[in-house]
């Protein structure tokens, strides 16, 4: 590679998920076949049809040096984003670099933010009349004053993002996309383009999941994607399995530092991987709140085109593979179609049996897992049960040692968008 080529490389990666904090801890757990999915903690899930999730261990705002004044409007998603952004920032040496603050961009996919019942409860109680029903006159005169005045900021998902920008003093190009997995991919694509257009010298890009709460759990249940059987005899989330029965929510975040190859070389930074292609396509499946097989195929084909690759160049697909009946079916059909000429050589991995569905956090987390795979030449096992009999590709269920150079990462929105990203070994 010449020093002047304009390819975009990854020079920092921050990851937090149910399997741990940091790339090494997560990788070791993943390789040993662990899953982060277990019974929900933090609130009583016994009334819910889905009682499992992949939750992160408590991140303490004090350990992150966050002032209580600021943490009052933050929550798990904010802490994950803060931790991952700082790790990506420092790993890429941006804390010591002489890059102007105005030339550091920031793009993230972020989920919906839910209030905590206790944030609004005092206000509601103060607005109840003697018969226990809600009286709006009481709410507008006294009730609303029970709400913490800065609470509204905690409801805007861009506020956590801005708190990170303040913490790292990043002032450049930026956007927050919401709220599903495709938004995390959009953030990475926009980061790549911002660098290709020379609108920034370095960019932090990635995404963060929602916090698992009674309200996010209900959002998942209402969308119909969650496993409600609670059969714990086999993995709860079973990507591409014959007996798959829905997905499981997870908490997690991934943030990448992106910059041009030239900038990384000049700064003496190690290139973890290159981001070489992406594409998006939208078409909702008529019977399912996700993308059609056609949209999934268009996203993959477009990503291959933009990277100048043909299907047989891809060594591994990190699938969306969320364990939903229709979502996985559409993805199987799309992979079969796009990779028809080499389908028996296609290896597919999904992280969701181990990490749950990280929504906006999923693409960057999967890319960071992909970096560890490129590093080690090992594909970790997909946590699942007996595969769907229609599958023609190789679903990696045992650690697979192979020569890995090029990885395609898929993700799906619950509203019908498909996104694909390609990363390649830095070389």
């Amino acid at each position, binding site marked *: 590679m010449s020093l002047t080529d304009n390819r975009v490389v990854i020079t920092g990666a921050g990851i937090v998920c149910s399997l741990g904090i940091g790339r090494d801890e997560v990788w070791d757990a993943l390789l040993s076949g662990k899953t982060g999915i277990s019974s929900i903690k933090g609130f009583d899930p016994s009334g819910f049809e889905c009682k499992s999730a992949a939750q992160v261990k408590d991140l303490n705002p004090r350990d992150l040096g966050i002032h209580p004044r600021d943490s009052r409007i933050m929550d798990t998603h904010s802490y994950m984003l803060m931790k991952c952004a700082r790790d990506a920032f420092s790993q890429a040496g941006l804390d010591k670099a002489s890059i102007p603050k105005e030339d550091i961009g920031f793009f993230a996919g972020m989920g919906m933010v839910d209030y905590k019942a206790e944030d*609004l409860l005092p206000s509601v109680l103060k607005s109840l009349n003697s018969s226990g029903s809600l009286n709006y006159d009481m709410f507008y005169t006294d009730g609303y004053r029970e709400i913490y005045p800065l609470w509204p900021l905690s409801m805007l998902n861009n506020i956590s*993002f801005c708190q990170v920008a*303040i913490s790292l003093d990043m002032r450049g190009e930026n956007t927050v996309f919401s709220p599903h997995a495709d938004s995390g991919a959009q953030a990475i694509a926009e980061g790549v383009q911002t660098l290709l257009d020379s609108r920034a010298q370095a960019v932090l890009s990635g995404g963060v999941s929602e916090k698992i709460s009674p309200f996010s759990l209900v*959002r998942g249940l209402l969308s119909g994607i969650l496993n409600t059987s609670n059969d714990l005899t086999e993995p709860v989330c079973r990507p591409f399995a014959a007996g798959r029965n829905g997905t499981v929510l997870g908490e997690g975040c991934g943030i990448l530092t992106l910059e041009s190859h030239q900038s990384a070389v000049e700064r003496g930074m190690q290139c973890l991987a290159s981001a070489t292609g992406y594409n998006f396509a939208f078409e909702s499946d008529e019977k399912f709140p996700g993308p059609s097989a056609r949209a999934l195929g268009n996203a993959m084909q477009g990503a291959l085109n933009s*990277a100048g690759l043909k299907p047989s160049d891809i060594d591994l697909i990190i699938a969306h593979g969320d364990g939903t009946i229709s979502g996985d079916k559409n993805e199987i059909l799309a992979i079969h179609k796009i990779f028809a000429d080499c389908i028996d050589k296609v290896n597919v991995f999904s992280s969701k049996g181990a990490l749950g569905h990280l929504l906006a956090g999923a693409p960057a987390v999967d890319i960071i897992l992909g970096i560890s795979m490129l590093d080690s030449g090992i594909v970790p096992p997909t946590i699942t049960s007996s595969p769907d009999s229609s599958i023609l590709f190789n679903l990696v269920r045992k650690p697979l040692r192979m020569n890995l150079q090029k990885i395609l990462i898929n993700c799906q*929105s619950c509203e019908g968008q498909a996104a694909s990203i390609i990363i390649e070994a830095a070389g």
Partner: protein
Amino acid sequence: MENSVNPDKNHKKRRVVVTGLGMATSLGLHVEESWGKALNGISGISKLTLPFAEKSPVQAVGEVGEKDWQKIQEEFKEESLTEGERRTLFALWAAKNALSDAGISDYGKQRDNCGVALAAGLGINRLEDIQNWINDRNFNIKRFGMEYSRVHRESIMRNNSHRPSALIGKRFGLHGMNCTVTTACASATQAIGIGYRSVQRGDADLMVAGGADSMINPVGLVFFVLLSAAATSSESPQTLCRPFDRKRAGLVMGEGAGIAILEEKSHAVRRGAKIYCEVAGYGSSMDAYQVTAPHPQGRGAEQSMRAALNDAGMNSHDIDYINAHGTSTKLNDAMETNAIKNVFQDHAKNIAISSSKSLIGHLLAASGGPEFVFTVLSTERNKVHPTINLTSPDPKCDLDYVPNMHRSMTVRAALSNSFGFGGQNASIIIIKYHGDEQ
């Protein structure tokens, strides 16, 4: 690796033109009608009509009128039965009108090269979602879990922010990229900026871009009161929003949508589409200062305007009109004025500046949508709508805000600003369309 992401990048940038406009605000459901009212300085702000809200500290809002709302519901019958948020239907209405204005009405066609970039606001935090599950003065999580299917269709749990954007894609057969931007009050201008860049670099040939929002609900009404940013006076609603005026006392909420069709120039020319204007540049920035207030000197605002000018390859003296963020808050209007002076120096006093919020209120996440529509019309037609209610000049706001009377003037290029809570900023530049000789 020369052939990596988007081979088109290596060529000259593709030009992006505006070929359709659509909106729904307190000034009406049609672009021409709304523009006419805006030029005449007619305010869309009126007394709140939300039921049971007589005691709301906020009494003046820019509502989409009841008759107009019924018209929208009739147009989108199916969606009006299933969707829980007004913003979703506003978005559909504005998108349909913008597409039809652009001469696109055969929605059955697969359009893989067309996409959507939309701003969406906060969902509705319903007090009833707490109240329904209170037992012994506590929120009963277990019972909530068992009865979750009772959650109201307007609730935030049933309405994710991607819904309006996705419905536009579904309803109108737009099968390219589809994204939702949530950067508070900067959202719509950022969505239009993302749409512009997507077309420019070849990710799409046509993008439906803009924003839709409504926070006229109980928690929404007190949202900015809690943050000390809302105007709560009981004086006449139409004069309450007074950007850049010494007596300005906070933002006045509006609701609605504003959407533009952004199209690759040759794609538009081949279709024989009417071309309003050309998008020339976009820039965004972060204050990295405080989440509760903008940087007092407007550091981020200045940077985003400079970034847009750089992107457009233009000099500061090329700009004739600025559609300001102009929220009617003490902090914003002073810092925005300062930032404009820093960017445009001696030329700042020659620029006509107006705030659409004085007319339609602050559409929050959507605000950049209708403001973009007005900015496009100003550039196409050499007319600028006034900032109304500007009667007591503020020494800190000493530029030309086109007070109270519209102006006919040459608008070669115009810039529209949007700045969001938290400190995210965006600026976009429109120029007159001159065909191929540019």
